[in-house]
């Protein structure tokens, strides 16, 4: 259902025309509401700030946080980056990979994408309600958005926003992206992983066709979106005259726990090491033989490697390669390390084959 609403500011008495269902029933006379906007574009800092806002002991009941990042790919808590995005391309183009703390799928951020986070008490958590809030904010900008079955925001069949949730004992948050001016071609490139024979326990992204707000409005931009969301937030929680408090890097120096969280998000152990177990099967026909490799990777470390080379001279090499690979990180550095360890003590005649093997593995993982 789309609602075309003129973008004049609605006063409370006009709201009654749209039915009581649009308003939350107040059980308390006042609600503690706070709204923040981040002036920082560093994705790790913004995520750390979000976590801090969520976990604060003296937290307000309802918090709105608006932020945007420079180019990066953000995957969900339990996802497998090797299956979700093209890590090689990202590394070539210097696009960092980030793992967030909430669930859900993989998304591409750039400065044309604005993120919103709505924090609320757990009992009030309702996926549809919070998605509808953002949708109404878009209606005020003359954009015909709606909420689909998966609680994503769409315009027609195309997705404009993806969302994810985190729920703890007393609070919950719903956060999502909003593609305003984002580079959709880049999004398509980075979120398209190369075809691999990989099976794992990670959460898979659900792909959908996307569009961006720019295709539906000449006047929308980051600031007008933020303002509209702020106004809708105030209307929904019946707190007039809300303002956005600005957050910047000073926050990191004032709150060491934000800095600590930011540092943790950047570690390899969090970004890659939190990948649930998966098995990757690869094979290749070389001039000198056929190689089949099966890697069982848990927490980013190769726990089990099975390598079969069907050339009789190379059986010993296969055994030694297995030994060298097991325990290494499933990454170019790990593979490189394994081959370096292997080069010591291998006969000269096999060096070419080993080099080819290494090149193939580095290319394929």
């Amino acid at each position, binding site marked *: 259902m789309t609602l075309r609403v003129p973008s004049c500011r609605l006063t409370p008495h006009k709201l009654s025309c749209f039915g009581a269902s649009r308003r939350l029933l107040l059980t308390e006379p006042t609600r503690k509401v706070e709204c923040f906007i981040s002036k920082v574009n560093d994705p790790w800092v913004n995520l750390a700030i979000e976590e801090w806002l969520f976990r604060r002991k003296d937290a307000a009941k309802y918090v709105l946080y608006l932020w945007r990042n420079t180019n990066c790919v953000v995957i*969900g*808590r*339990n996802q497998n980056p090797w299956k979700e995005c093209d890590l090689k391309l990202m590394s070539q183009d210097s696009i960092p990979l980030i793992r967030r*703390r909430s*669930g859900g799928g993989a998304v591409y951020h750039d400065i044309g994408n604005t993120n919103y986070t709505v924090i609320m008490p757990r009992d009030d958590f*309702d996926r549809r309600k919070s998605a509808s809030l953002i949708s109404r904010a878009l209606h005020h900008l003359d954009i015909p958005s709606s909420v689909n079955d998966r609680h994503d925001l769409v315009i027609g069949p195309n997705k404009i926003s993806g*969302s994810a949730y985190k*729920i703890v004992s007393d609070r919950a948050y719903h956060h999502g992206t909003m593609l305003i001016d984002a580079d959709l071609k880049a999004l398509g490139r980075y979120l398209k992983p190369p075809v691999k024979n990989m099976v794992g326990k990670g*959460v898979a992204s659900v792909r959908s066709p996307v569009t961006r707000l720019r295709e539906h409005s000449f006047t929308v931009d980051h600031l007008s979106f933020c303002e509209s969301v702020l106004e809708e937030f105030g209307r929904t929680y019946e707190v007039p005259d809300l303002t956005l408090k600005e957050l910047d890097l000073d926050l990191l120096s004032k709150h060491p726990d934000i800095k600590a969280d930011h540092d943790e998000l950047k570690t390899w152990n969090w970004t890659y090491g939190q990948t*649930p177990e998966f098995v990757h099967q690869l094979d290749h026909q070389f001039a000198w033989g056929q190689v089949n490799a099966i890697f069982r990777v848990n927490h980013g470390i190769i726990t089990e490697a099975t390598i079969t080379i069907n050339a009789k001279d190379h059986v010993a090499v296969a055994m030694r390669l297995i030994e060298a690979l097991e325990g290494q990180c499933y990454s170019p550095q790990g593979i490189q390390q394994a081959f370096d360890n292997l080069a010591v003590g291998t006969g000269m005649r096999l060096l070419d084959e080993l080099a080819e093997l290494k090149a193939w593995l580095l290319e394929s993982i």
Partner: protein
Amino acid sequence: MSIMLRRAIPSITRRRRPPQVRFVKPGDTVEQFTPVCEVQSDKAAVEITSRYDGTVKTLHYKPGDVARVGQPLLDIETEAASAKDHVPTSTTYSISEEPHTEVIDSVKQTTASPPSASPLRSESTTFTNTQTLATPAVRRIAKENNLNLSLVRGSGPDGRILKGDVLAHIAGLKPTPTSPSSPPSPSPSTTSTSTPSQPQQTTRKPLTKIQRAMYKSMTKSLTIPHFSFSDEITLNATTQLRAQINAYLKQNQKNEWGLEKISYMPIFVKTLSVALRDFEILNCRVVQGEGGEVELEWRESHNVGVAMDTPQGLLVPNIKSVHQKSILQIAQDLQQLRTLSSQNALQPSHFQNGTITLSNIGSIGGTVMHPVLVDTEVCIGAVGSVRRLPRFEVGEDGVERVVAKEVMGVSFSADHRVVDGATVARFVRRWKGLLEEPGWLLAGLK
């Protein structure tokens, strides 16, 4: 004393995406509200906190495993002063069973003790509640006041004990549920026999999975006009045949079939299939054609469904391709199905593609039955119990005598929209002929 509590997976999201788990370890001490694990489901990462103080005893899942909604997550051992429960209490988060309603994100909690709980207290009042439904907050209040919850009458839904009930009971304001002069009733039933003004206790329970399946299937079967045909089969020859087979199996203990002995069912099932060869219409099914008109689907394979009475209820798995199997192979399949059903390990494929059903209600008893058709079949048979009855027989000397025969009643129901009475009558007589004179089976052997 310690109570073992189990935490179950809350249904915070749709069931189609199974949750993944991250955990505390056994031996860890947990307090109320400390996180015990993180569960991930489609888009939500949920941190589950402990409702109790205690020590983690066992984990039902490893980190990274896929957990099932409604199943226990971990066991927490607590110390509880109240002696009211001598049996494990399970804390489960209830699920909304409708997949189409809005996702219920707030976790609803019920605590119930199993019906076989609480022996009678030796208190003076006769009111005993075997089902003490109460939230942890209410239980805490009761515990703090050393109150036995089974003595409190709940005024909430389903007899749930609310905070007000407990407080009123403590204050002594609650009128005693029964007159003090009535003697304690020896049975742990919840309805006291003394005062007539007590309302009758009824409890509502949702249907189990099997009951629900039966309900759906039988409602569909209502649209089919049934007719029944019953007959009597003299089983003496079959009994002899069975004895011979079992003697053979006993001699060859390590036989390739893995069987010690067989029951009548494999013989019934095989002869049914042989008889079906001449009456293939009974193996059909009524379907809606593409143009909307009704068609008969002729099926080549005889997949005979065998009704099994299990502790969970009625299950009808089928034995596939009976027309191509021998009696011993069928016996093997039957044994396997019985084992699987006792372990609750039957797969959906066992229940699909059945073409005709045979029910052995006779193992419990009965003479004439009226089995209800499965809506994907047109014929179903039920065999009653075997009884020893007197019958007339002309002996070899030409004298008519009364002899004892083993007689079994059978009843067949069929879909009268596509099958007529004569067909079923002839089919049953054919089957009866094969069972009474197994020589015909041999004669037809290829």
